[in-house]
């Protein structure tokens, strides 16, 4: 045992945690967004090669066989199925799990606030997220496109610059030389050269991402095309990620399959695709936008703490 039996956070912070729950519920209730609970366990997992899912075994009642179940890395698949079934706008505050993530800003088990708004695009959801932040006492938010933020820090265009140029800049900024694809290089440059500069008293939204970073966002066919996705930064720390949600079942299936191919190429295990989500999208997901916000990181910013475990009742080393 490495930690002490006592809470990781002070009682004052634990009270502020409770207060944040109340503020979220009030905010959602004022807007008629329904609180829901979706399962933490799932027969399918997240194919994203950059996430490591925890899994467990459950006994099947009739056969006595053990079946693998994944702990959710985000409630997004289940919540989109619910939206497709006609729920209207929904939110939830839930625990999510990501193996191997431990550090000043990471815990393998943490709390997510996730909400979906029918008829919203990513701009409308940024507007609503800003109202939420104002209620928590934050200042008005700034907004920059990904390309503007990227170009002003690096002088390179993330959509059109040659991969070799991006790679050289990454190596000059400390990335060790090894085989890296464009997406990894962009992740490096963004997290090392751009995000630390997204500081100041105003929270910052970065929106319209390169298509190789679309995740579950829809793609808008501009020149060049962009993913209708946004991220929120407060004082250089990533707090939230949102999408104008992809509704196309065929394209979603292709993205999952591509991710599994990437997994195989990287020597990682293949993850069973969530066919329930694909079926739901086939039936029809209303036009909507969704956002996932890190509850604990948000609390770090409202309380001024600089280590995530210090806003958790019992951090990973004490559970």
């Amino acid at each position: 045992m490495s930690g002490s039996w006592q809470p990781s956070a002070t009682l004052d912070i634990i009270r502020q945690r409770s207060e944040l729950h109340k503020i979220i519920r009030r905010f959602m209730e004022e807007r008629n967004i329904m609180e829901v609970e979706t399962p933490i366990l799932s027969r399918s997992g997240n194919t994203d090669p950059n996430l490591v899912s925890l899994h467990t075994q459950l006994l099947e009642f009739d056969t006595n066989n053990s079946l693998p179940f994944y702990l959710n890395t985000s409630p997004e698949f289940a919540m989109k199925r619910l939206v497709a079934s006609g729920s209207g706008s929904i939110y939830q505050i839930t625990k999510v799990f990501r193996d191997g993530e431990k550090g000043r800003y990471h815990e393998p088990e943490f709390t997510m606030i996730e909400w979906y708004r029918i008829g919203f695009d990513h701009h409308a959801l940024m507007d609503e997220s800003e109202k939420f932040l104002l209620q928590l006492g934050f200042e008005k938010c700034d907004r920059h496109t990904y390309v503007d933020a990227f170009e002003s820090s690096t002088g390179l265009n993330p959509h059109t610059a040659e991969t070799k140029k991006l790679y050289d800049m990454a190596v000059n900024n400390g990335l060790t030389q090894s085989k890296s694809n464009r997406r990894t290089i962009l992740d490096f440059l963004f997290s090392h050269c751009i995000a630390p500069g997204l500081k100041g008293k105003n929270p910052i939204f970065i929106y319209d991402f390169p298509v190789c970073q679309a995740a579950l966002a829809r793609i808008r066919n501009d020149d060049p095309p962009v993913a209708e996705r946004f991220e929120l930064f407060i004082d250089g720390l990533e707090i939230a990620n949102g999408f104008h949600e992809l509704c196309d079942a065929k394209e979603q299936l292709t993205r999952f399959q591509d991710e599994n191919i990437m997994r195989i190429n990287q020597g990682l295990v293949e993850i069973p695709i969530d066919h329930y989500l694909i079926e739901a999208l086939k039936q029809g997901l209303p036009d909507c936008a969704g956002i996932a916000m890190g509850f604990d990181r948000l609390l770090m910013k409202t309380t001024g703490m600089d280590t995530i475990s210090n806003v958790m009742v019992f951090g990973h080393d004490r559970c």
Partner: protein
Amino acid sequence: MATYNTSEFRSGLKLMIDGDPYAILENEFVKPGKGQAFNRVRLRNLKNGRVLERTYKSGESVEAADVMDVKLQYLYNDGEMWHFMDTDSYDQYMADETAMVDAAQWIKGEEECEVTLWNGSPLTVAPPKFAILKISETDPGLRGDTATGGTKPAKLETGAMIKVPLFVEEGETVRVDTRTAEYMSRSKDK
């Protein structure tokens, strides 16, 4: 060739980079919510003390530095080099100024130090966690003043400067935490 995976990174771990041995000073896990995970590390070159920042993709393996940590007894300084001895084998080792940067001001002789050897030579020398040293210079104390919590500068017999409470006097022996250079207590050892 021994290697370490990034998941084993922690401060103090010794790596080989471009032919030089390095020690990890800080290891930070960096990961965008949707994206590649990295380990951003600050490293100290054990040969010249220079600090470097590097970022590895999480999951990468890095060559381990073939170094060995041993306990050696400090013997003496010849004006240029510091001499140490293995008290089991009686083998003697010489450390240069670079290796002594953390330890030199805390040792006077006979202390047991943790020494990192690379190719048989001391790369770094860590002082004992606590040093017991005599005060060679300090302003006269305010006798009886044990309550106000004030401090004054004091020079130790090894030349190190620390802060001591007002009641501590020249010629007294004190116990010092060498990691923080903080006065701990008066010492009965003379």
